[in-house]
């Protein structure tokens, strides 16, 4: 620890802390443009000048480490004047177009000019104009506004790992330019908007749509993947206007991926706002009573094994818990939350979550990725892997199809059989795992959902035991889920009950062959609806997607922005999403629908309101009650065995921008699919 004096205050900081960081830690405001907590230091804006006694000139506090006995001043006249002069220089070429700028009202330059600048410009020179750059469907550029802080360059280089932006030409002519015009080939491009301190890079999809001060802000959780990124939902009236990240050091740091950020316009399209009933092949709008009555009739005297329910990827814990209670009331053993058809052993919680946590990646020294493309399955896990790579001293290996992960890795093998080679130490990567201090394995959910998934899962468990992945205080065995609902569903035991309960594939096969009469889809859209035979399909969800198209009854429920719900992310970390806007039209909360339906069937559920439901749910799965706390899972042997397939593992989704019903309804995601994905796919 170092002791120094800032503004006549004795302050103690850790060695290596910059003056700016020391000030921030002690609530002393230092204006800055180029400095960003998560990026390297550029020292180019000169806004963070402070005075250090015995130093002849003012120093930039972002790049000056604290030293013992330093006496720093941040508020005297000399600094005020210097800051005002820096501000004047930054504004030399900055247009006075705040009234038409989308950043207006939430602009660092505006705020700091107001706080630290002069009230007028003394420049009589002509201002320069810079041509706007084409950066694809997500980012709008007004390059004349750029103040050359180079945050965007550093973000692309360091976080996104796609060095595509650069500062071309020099001095007065410097321009931030992409290497070639066209979309930024990164799944994290939207963060450029966030880090730009001026209006040079703004969101294209919501250009001129709102002013930041008009928005109501609700803290919530993202459901586009299983990372559970912390987000803030900004709404106006009953409409979600934008989604921005919230800081969570353990999960997403300050970033979110483009799907999280921009798929929210899908909430305005293809919505189910009232119940529908299929009559003579067409879905017709009906009342809740009629819809429930039809279902109750269908369920009346139905043998319980002829009913099944599948929960989709966006389902929250409350919905699944209510559904399970409903099915229990009907004595149905057929239920599954794994619509991808995964059948690997879930008897141990350690066998289906990311035990090391996302932040644990930073401690690992050998990382083996098995059948996963984290870049598109969990972009922020990939960002963390890249961060680990930049820290140095890590070996990363990949089993699966080679792809661009934005950091170098060793390609260990193509198929699941490679895992056996590692087990038998036939592959040199095994030596790395053996010698590692903190080895880590990340098994992709898609690979574990294949036909040889149970075998692969077992082999990975054996690998974990063979190389002692689960050590004291660090469990390196990880399953990287890709669906927001999965861990929650498994935690609640939304899986086939008893010996004869059918899993997802079993239910579909039974429907196809007529052994299952009623299939209840709880927002399940990501499976093939063609082969459901003559089954009566109830779809409960919020988008008119694949499930609703096949359904015989459609029950509208709120999307994730319209309800309070628990989600458990891939780490096993329970978090709570909050309602930002009201449900659309006649939509009813999932659990309320099930309570009504149970009543219509003459059954009763053990809860009548949301409070009771949550209490019951937390009683069934106590860890859901401790929000944001990751339970430590006991290590135990798991796995059902089986034979590994030689078939190459395809890692990564078929289309990053279209993985659930919300993004499939989003015009922005459709545009990304057309313009970005073909290029990004080539990259990845």
């Amino acid at each position, binding site marked *: 620890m170092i002791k120094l004096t800032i503004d006549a205050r004795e302050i103690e900081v850790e060695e290596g802390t910059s003056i700016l960081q020391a000030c921030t830690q002690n609530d002393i405001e230092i204006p800055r443009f180029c400095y960003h907590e998560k990026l390297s230091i550029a020292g180019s804006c000169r806004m963070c000048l402070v005075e250090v006694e015995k130093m002849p000139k003012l120093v930039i506090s972002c790049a000056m480490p604290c030293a013992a006995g330093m006496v720093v001043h941040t508020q005297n006249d000399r600094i005020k004047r210097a800051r005002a002069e820096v501000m004047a220089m930054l504004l030399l070429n900055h247009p006075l177009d705040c009234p038409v700028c989308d950043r207006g009202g939430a602009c660092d330059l505006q705020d700091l000019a107001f706080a630290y600048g002069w009230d007028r410009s003394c420049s009589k020179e002509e201002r320069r104009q810079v041509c706007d750059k084409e950066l694809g469907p997500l980012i709008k550029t007004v390059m004349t506004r750029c103040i050359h802080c180079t945050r965007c360059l550093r973000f692309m*280089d360091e976080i996104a790992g796609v*060095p595509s*932006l650069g500062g071309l030409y*020099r001095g007065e*002519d410097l*321009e931030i330019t*992409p*290497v070639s015009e066209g979309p930024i080939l990164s799944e994290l491009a939207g963060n450029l908007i966030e880090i730009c301190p001026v209006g040079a890079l703004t969101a294209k999809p919501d250009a001129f749509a709102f002013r930041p001060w008009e928005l109501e802000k609700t803290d919530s959780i993202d459901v586009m993947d299983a990372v559970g990124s912390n987000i803030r939902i900004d709404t106006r009236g009953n409409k979600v206007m934008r989604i921005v990240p919230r800081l969570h050091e353990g999960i997403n740091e300050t970033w979110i991926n483009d799907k999280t950020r921009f798929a929210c316009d899908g909430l305005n399209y293809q919505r189910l706002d009232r119940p529908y009933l299929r009559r003579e092949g067409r879905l017709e709008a009906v009342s809740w009573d009629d819809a429930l009555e039809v279902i109750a009739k269908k369920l009346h005297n139905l043998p319980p094994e002829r009913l099944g329910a599948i929960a989709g990827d966006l389902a929250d814990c409350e919905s699944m818990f209510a559904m399970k209670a409903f099915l229990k009331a009907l004595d149905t053993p057929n239920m599954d939350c794994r619509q991808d058809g995964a059948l690997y052993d879930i008897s141990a919680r350690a066998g289906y979550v990311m035990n090391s946590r996302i932040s644990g990646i930073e401690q690992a020294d050998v990382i083996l990725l098995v059948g996963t493309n984290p870049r598109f399955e969990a972009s922020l896990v990939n960002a963390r892997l890249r961060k680990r790579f930049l820290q140095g001293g890590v070996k990363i290996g990949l089993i699966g199809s080679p792809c661009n992960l934005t950091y170098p890795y060793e390609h260990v093998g193509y198929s699941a059989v490679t895992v056996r080679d590692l087990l038998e130490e036939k592959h040199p990567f095994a030596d790395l795992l053996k010698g590692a201090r903190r080895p880590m394995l990340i098994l992709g959910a898609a690979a574990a959902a294949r036909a040889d998934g149970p075998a692969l899962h077992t082999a990975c468990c054996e690998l974990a035991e063979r190389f002692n992945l689960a050590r004291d205080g660090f469990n390196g065995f990880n399953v990287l889920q890709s669906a927001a609902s999965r861990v929650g569903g498994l935690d609640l035991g939304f899986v086939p009950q008893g010996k004869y309960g059918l899993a997802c594939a079993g239910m579909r096969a039974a429907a196809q062959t007529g052994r299952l009469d009623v299939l209840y889809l709880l927002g399940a859209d990501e499976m093939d609806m063609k082969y459901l035979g003559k089954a009566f399909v109830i779809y409960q969800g919020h988008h008119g997607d694949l499930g609703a198209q096949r359904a015989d009854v459609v029950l509208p429920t709120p999307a994730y922005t319209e309800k309070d719900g628990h989600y458990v992310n891939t780490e096993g970390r329970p978090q709570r999403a909050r309602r930002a806007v009201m449900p659309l039209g006649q939509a009813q909360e999932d659990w309320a629908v099930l309570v009504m339906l149970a009543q219509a069937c003459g059954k009763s559920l053990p809860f009548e309101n949301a409070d009771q439901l949550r209490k019951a749910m937390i009683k069934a799965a106590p860890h859901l009650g401790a929000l944001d706390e990751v339970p430590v899972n006991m290590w135990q042997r798991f796995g059902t065995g089986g034979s590994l397939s030689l078939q190459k593992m395809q890692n990564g989704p078929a289309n990053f921008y279209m993985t659930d019903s919300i993004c499939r309804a989003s015009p922005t995601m459709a545009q990304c699919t057309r313009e970005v994905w073909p290029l990004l796919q080539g990259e990845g």
Partner: protein
Amino acid sequence: MMAMALSTGQPVFSFQPEAQEQARAIVARYPEGRQASALAPLLDLAQRQNKGFLSRDAIFYVADFLDVPAIRAFEVASFYSMFNLEPVGLYLIQICRTTPCWLAGSDDLKKAIEEHLGLKVGQTSEDKLFTLREVECLGACVNAPAVQINDDYYEALTPETLIAILKALARGEKPVYAPCNVAGRCSCACKKEKTC
């Protein structure tokens, strides 16, 4: 200065065999893992092979050769005025316009060239032989005014001597111009009677 446009549409570039060898020799000057340091020399090598200017292809090629992101090579290429991002004539005439040369008559030189070649600063002659450009200090103030033509410096010039040089170049000769007895000095040496 106008920002130069990055030229496009040039044929695909690659180093000739002897340039390959030179490039490898240049890269070998730097420690292992620091190949990116060879960026500027290799861009220069590429420019020499590519008729005096760097096409997009050439920059991409060099970046690829050194395994650095293309944008880093573009940054270097666009930063230094010695790299040309637009095609230039066979002879690139760079007139120094910084104070000493300007005092010693660089404006007259500029006017003489513009009249002789019929072009303005920044332009290339129709026969693609000459490109005229103004530059800041060439570092030859001792013999101002100075002009750089490709790699050669021509110093202590007058409009007449400069035009003679241009004419010789146009004929395909390589003129040697070593001015003596300019203001009582030979080349940049001191006056005869003085030690310094």
